[in-house]
C-alpha cells in the first residue's frame, strides 16, 4: 500500500516514476499471491465482515474471505487480462496501421474508414452488447477489450509510418531493390518502438479500466474468482457497514492507473502534466492546420500532443515537406489525422 501511496505523491511532483520501479511493482503484484500464504477463496463463516486486524490486514468480506488476498489475486486477474488485451490491441493496431501506410490508395482509404467507424461507437457499449451475445470468460474478455482498443494505435502507427516513408533511407532501400513489405518490416517497424511503448501504456490503462468496469457491471470475470472490478460489486452493498471492502480494490485501481498515466509521461494525463517542459508555444497557424474533419478522433492523436510524441523533426510543417516526398501525398499534419 505504501508503494501505491508513493505513486499518488509522484503525481504531484514533476518527474515520472522510473519504469523499472513500475515493472517491479507489477511483477510483485502478479507474483506475490503465489508466494504468500493467502487464500482468496477460503470461506470462514466465523470471521464475517471483520474490520482490518493483524490476522486480516484489510479485513474480511461477507463470506469471511481475506480482502488482502482477494485484492492481490484480483490484481493478477485485472492486470493479466489488461496486459493480454493490450498486447492484442497494439499488435492489431500496428498491423492495420502498417498495412494502411504501406498499401496506400484504396487499401489505406478502406482501412482508415474502418478505424473511423470503429472509433465512433463507444467501446464500453460495444463490449456490453457483445457480452449479451456471449457471456464472456477471461479469453473472450481479452478478445473484446483488445478488439475495441486497436484503433488509436493504428492511427498513430500509420501517421508515423507515412512520415518515415518519405525519409531518404527508405528511398535508398528502395533503390537497392527492397520491396515495400521488407522496408516496412525491417526498416520502419524498429523506429516505432517508442511510439508503441507509449501507445501500449495508454492501452494498458484503458484495458484495466475496461475490465474493471465490465466486471463491476457483472458481465466480466464472475465471482468468486476475484478481480478489482468484481470485488467492488459486493462492496457497494456493504458500504455503510464495511467500508474497507470498497476502499482496498478502489485504491488499488486508482493507484495503478495513476502510475500508468505518469509512466514516461505516456498517458494523456502524464503528458499534459508535463506540458510545461516541452511546451514551447505551438504556432497558431500550425494548430489550425489540423481540425478539418477531425471529428471525434481520439484526443491523443490531436495537435495538443503530437509535438511531444515524436522526435523534433521539421516535417510536421507543410512548409518543410521534403521535396522528394511522393507526389499526391498530403501534408503530414493532415495525414496523421487520418481524416
Amino acid at each position, binding site marked *: 500500500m505504501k508503494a501505491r501511496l508513493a505513486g499518488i505523491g509522484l503525481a504531484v511532483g514533476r518527474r515520472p516514476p522510473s519504469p523499472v520501479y513500475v515493472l517491479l511493482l507489477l511483477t510483485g503484484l502478479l507474483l506475490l499471491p503465489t508466494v504468500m500464504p493467502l487464500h482468496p477463496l477460503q470461506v470462514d463463516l466465523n470471521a464475517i465482515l471483520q474490520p482490518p486486524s493483524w490476522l486480516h490486514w484489510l479485513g474480511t468480506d461477507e463470506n469471511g474471505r481475506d480482502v488482502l488476498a482477494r485484492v492481490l489475486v484480483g490484481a493478477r486477474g485485472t492486470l493479466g487480462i489488461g496486459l493480454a488485451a493490450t498486447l492484442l490491441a497494439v499488435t492489431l493496431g500496428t498491423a492495420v496501421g502498417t498495412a494502411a501506410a504501406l498499401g496506400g490508395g484504396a487499401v489505406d482509404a478502406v482501412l482508415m474508414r474502418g478505424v473511423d467507424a470503429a472509433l465512433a461507437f463507444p467501446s464500453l457499449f460495444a463490449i456490453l452488447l457483445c457480452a449479451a451475445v456471449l457471456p464472456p470468460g477471461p479469453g473472450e474478455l481479452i478478445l473484446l477489450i483488445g478488439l475495441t482498443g486497436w484503433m488509436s494505435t493504428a492511427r498513430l502507427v500509420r501517421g508515423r509510418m507515412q512520415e518515415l516513408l518519405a525519409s531518404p533511407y527508405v528511398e535508398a532501400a528502395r533503390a537497392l531493390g527492397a520491396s515495400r513489405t521488407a522496408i516496412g518490416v525491417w526498416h520502419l517497424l524498429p523506429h516505432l518502438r517508442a511510439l508503441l511503448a507509449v501507445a501500449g501504456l495508454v492501452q494498458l490503462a484503458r484495458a484495466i479500466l475496461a475490465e474493471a468496469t465490465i466486471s463491476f457491471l457483472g458481465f466480466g470475470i464472475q465471482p468468486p474468482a476475484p478481480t478489482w472490478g468484481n470485488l467492488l460489486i459486493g462492496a457497494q452493498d456493504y458500504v455503510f457497514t464495511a*467500508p474497507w471492502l470498497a476502499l482496498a480494490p478502489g485504491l488499488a485501481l486508482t493507484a495503478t492507473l495513476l502510475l500508468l498515466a505518469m509512466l514516461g509521461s505516456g498517458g494523456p494525463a502524464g503528458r499534459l502534466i508535463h506540458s510545461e517542459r516541452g511546451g514551447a508555444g505551438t504556432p497558431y497557424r500550425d494548430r489550425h492546420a489540423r481540425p478539418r474533419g477531425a471529428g471525434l478522433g481520439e484526443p491523443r492523436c490531436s495537435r495538443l500532443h503530437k509535438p511531444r510524441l515524436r522526435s523534433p523533426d521539421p516535417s510536421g510543417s507543410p512548409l518543410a515537406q521534403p521535396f522528394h516526398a511522393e507526389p499526391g501525398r498530403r501534408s503530414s499534419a493532415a495525414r496523421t489525422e487520418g481524416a
Partner: protein
Amino acid sequence: MLGFLGRRLLQAALTLGTLVALVFLALRLAPGGPAYVLLGADRYTPERAARIERQLGLDRPLPEQLGRWVRELAQGELGSSVFHHRPALAVVTERLPATLLLGGLAFLLSLAGGVAAGVWAAVRREGLTDRLLRSGAVLLLATPSFWLGIGLILVLSAWLRWLPSAGLGPVGQAATLLERVRYLLLPLFTLSASHAASLALYTRAAMVDALRHEAIRTAQAMGARPRRLVWRHALALAAVPIVTIAGLNLAHFLEGSLVVESVFAWPGIGQLTVASVARRDYPVLLVISLFAGAVVVLANLLVDVTHRWLDPRVVAE
C-alpha cells in the same frame, strides 16, 4: 456550407445504417437466445423454445429477419420488449428523461467547470492553484467512475449522512425540488468528474499556447483589459481543441451513464442497458444502440459544424 452539411448528414446516415445492421446480426448470432431467457432454465425444452421462436419470427433466415426489421423500423415499429411485453421504443423512451436530465446537466457542469478550471490554471501557470488543479484533475482521471461513486457514497452518505445514496427521490412521497436536487447531486458529480478533469487539462494546454500568441500581445498592447484578454481573445484562439474534446465527451457520457446509473440506482437508459444485457432483451438493446449511435453521430456532426463556424479556414473534404 450547405453542401458540407449535406455530405456530413449523408455520412451520418450511412454510419448509423451500418451500425444497425451490425448490431442486429451480432445479437441474432447469440447462443441460447431470447427463448432460453423467456422460459428460464427449469421450463426450457426444445419444443417450447421452437414455438416461441416461431412466434417471434426467429426461425426465419437472417437476411429475411433483417429485411423485416428494417421495414418495421421505417414504419416506426421497433419490435416489442421480450421482457416487458411492451413496445421496445416505449420502454426506452420512458427512461429517456432521467438520462437526459442527468447527462445533460453533467455535460453542462463538466463544460463550465472544466473550461473555467483550465483557463484559471493556464492564467496562473506554475502557481499553486495550477499545480493543485492539475493534480486534482489527474487524480480524477485515474479514478474509475464506479469507484468514485462508491467513494462519494462512503464519505457523503455513510459517514457524513449529508446526501442520499441512491434513487431519483424519496420513496413513496412527493418530492420537493430541493429533495430532488439532493438526490441528483452525487450522480451528477460522479458523471461529470472525469469529463471535467480531461476538459480542464486540455483547456489548460490550449490556453497556455493561446496566451503566448502574437494576437494576445497585440490585444494587450492595444489596451484590452486582462479579463477580456483571457476570456474573449485567448479563449477564442483555444476554442477548437476544447470543442473537440467536449464533443468527444458528449458521446462518452453514454458510457458514463451505464456505470453511474448502476451505482446510484438512477432509473435511466444506462441502467436499462445493463439490465437488458443480462436479460438478453434484444429489441430493447437494438433501440438503445440506435439511440447511442444517433448520439455519437450527432456529436460528431456538431463538432464538425462548430469547427467550421469557429474557424472559417477549416475546409470540408
